[in-house]
C-alpha cells in the first residue's frame, strides 16, 4: 500500500480533474488518464488498489464535477484522510462509496514512510504506531457507503420494493 501525501490546503476539483475534460470523460478508464493531472502527474500511473491519500483543509473544493470522487474510487483508493473536506466533494464521495476520514491530528502526525491503517468500523486510524479516533458518519450515510454508493443503495431499495 502506498500513501500519497498532499498536505496543502484547498486542493480543488480542477487540480483533481481538469475542467476541460469534464464533458468528454465520464467513465473510470477515461477519468484515470487525467486524474490529479495538474497536481501530481505521476499519480495516475503509480496509484494502486488499496492506496491512501492524505491532505490538508478543504480537500475537493470547487466544482460539483464527480470525476475526482468517481475516479479515486475507480483506481481503488481505500481512504482519503484530510483535515477537512469541501461539502460537495464530501457528499460525492459518499455517493461513490469512497471512504473519507476527517482527522486533522492524524494528518499532522503523518511522516513520510509511516504505515497507515484505517479501521472504518472501529473509527480508528493507526499511523506509525499511534492511534487516532475519527467520528463515525450518521447512519443514513453509513448505509449508502456500505451498499457501495448511492445508486447501488437505491437499486437495493428498489429491488426490496420500498424504493418509492
Amino acid at each position, binding site marked *: 500500500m502506498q500513501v500519497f501525501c498532499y498536505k496543502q490546503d484547498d486542493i*480543488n476539483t480542477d487540480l483533481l480533474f481538469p475542467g476541460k475534460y469534464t*464533458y468528454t470523460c465520464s467513465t473510470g478508464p477515461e477519468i484515470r488518464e487525467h486524474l490529479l493531472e495538474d497536481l501530481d502527474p505521476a499519480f495516475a500511473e503509480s496509484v494502486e488498489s488499496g492506496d491512501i491519500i492524505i491532505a490538508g483543509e478543504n480537500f475537493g473544493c470547487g466544482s460539483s464535477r464527480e470525476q475526482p470522487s468517481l475516479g479515486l474510487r475507480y483506481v481503488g483508493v481505500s481512504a482519503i484522510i484530510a483535515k477537512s473536506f469541501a461539502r460537495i466533494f464530501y457528499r460525492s464521495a459518499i455517493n461513490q462509496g469512497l471512504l473519507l476520514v476527517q482527522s486533522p491530528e492524524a494528518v499532522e502526525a503523518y511522516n513520510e514512510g509511516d504505515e497507515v491503517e484505517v479501521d472504518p468500523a472501529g473509527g480508528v486510524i493507526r499511523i506509525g504506531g499511534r492511534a487516532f479516533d475519527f467520528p463515525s458518519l450518521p447512519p443514513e450515510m453509513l448505509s449508502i457507503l456500505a451498499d457501495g454508493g448511492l445508486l447501488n443503495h437505491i437499486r437495493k431499495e428498489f429491488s426490496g420494493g420500498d424504493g418509492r
Partner: protein
Amino acid sequence: MGETFAVKILGRAAGKKVREGEIIFVEPDYVLTHDNSSAIIGKFEATVPGSKVRYPERLAIVLDHVIPAATSKNAAGHSKIRKFVQEQDIRHFYDIGTGICHQVLPEMGLVKPGSIVVGSDSHTCTYGAFNCFATGIDRTEAAGIWITGKTWFKVPETINIDITGGFTAGVSAKDLILTIIGDIGAGGANYMAVEFNGPAVAGLRICDRMTIANMGIEMGAKIAVFPANSVTNRYLETVGIDSTAALWSDHDAEYTRSLEYDLADIVPVVSCPHQVDNVIPIRELPETGIDQVFIGTCTNGRVEDFQAALQILRGRTVHSDVRLLVGPASRQEYLKAMRMGLIQDFVEAGAVILPPGCGPCLGAHQGVLAPHEKCLSTANRNFKGRMGEKDAEIYLSSPETAAASAITGRITDPREVL
C-alpha cells in the same frame, strides 16, 4: 432564540421542527442538470432500466457548458439529452442559445422564494439571490433524485453578513463578494449557510444579489441567501411568479459567526492565481500585464454588468496586446443588450462576442489560454488549469476593472480611468 432561514426552510420541507446538525430528507422543487445530463442519463438507465423519471416536471435541463458543441463527443452528449427529454416528457428543457443555467432558471420562473433547488453544478447557490435554498450536488445524486424524487441534507449552521452603506464610484457587488471571500477563506463557510442582512440589502439590485450568491461556493457555503423584498418582487412579476412562500430568519436568530461590511469601505480588488480567496486591492498589486479579458459568465454576464463595463469602455478601444471576449448570460440578456446598443459598443471597442453560454470559463473552448498567458475574467473561479492551460494565470475582477484593464493592457483600478 429565533431560527435562521436554513432551519426554517428545511423544517418546513421536512414537515417538522429541525435542529442544526440534524439529517433530514426532502423532495427538492427542482433538480437542475446541464451538459452533464448525458452522463446522468447513463447512470439513471443503468440503475432503473426502462423506468420513467419520478417527477419529470421537476427536472430542469439547460445546455450551456460547451455550446455550440466543440467536438463530436460533446455533440453526441447533447443529442442523447434531447432524445431523453422527448422520451421522458421533460418540459423544462432549454437548448443551446437560451443561456447559462443560473440565468435561465430564474428567467423561466423556476426559482421561487422559499423553494428548494439542487443542481449538479456548484454555482447552483446563485438562486439564493431569490430567497431560494439552492445548492450543488454531484451527477450521481442528480441521477438518484431523478429516480426517487428525494435527497438528504444536514441542517447547516449559519454565518450572518450584515451590510451597510453604499458603493463608491467604480466599485460594485463583485468587489464586495471577493473581499468577503478573501476575509473568510476558501473553506471558511464550508458546510454552512450564509445569510445577507442589514440596511444595504434593500438597495442591492437582483444582478448584484446574483453576483454575490453565485460566489457563495467559493467560500465553501452550502447556500448564500438574501431575503425577498420589493426588488425581488418586481423581478418576480416580470417572470410571472410571486414570493408568497418566502421565508426569512428571526431577528434573534443565533448565528455561528457574524461579520459586518460597510459598502463605502470596499475598494476595487482582484483575486490572484490560483485561488479565489487570494484577494488584494488593485492599488497594492504590482504591475500585471494581461493577454485576455473575459466579461461574462453566470457571475457577471448581465446587462447591468455590460453597462458598467461600457461606462469605461465606450468610445475607447481595447489595448492592442489584449483580446476582449464578451459573453451574455442568456438570450434575454443578449437581446436587451442589443436593443440598448451595448453589443454594438462592445464590438466597436474591439470585443469578440460569444454565444450565451459558459464560454471559456471552464476551459473547454472559445478562448482557452496559451501557456504563461494571463487572463482577467469576471468569472467566479481562477483555479490552476481552469481556462484550459495549467501554466496560464487567471485573475478575477468586477466588470468595471475588466473594462479598465482591457483599455490599458494591465490590471487597472477602474477609478483611474473613470
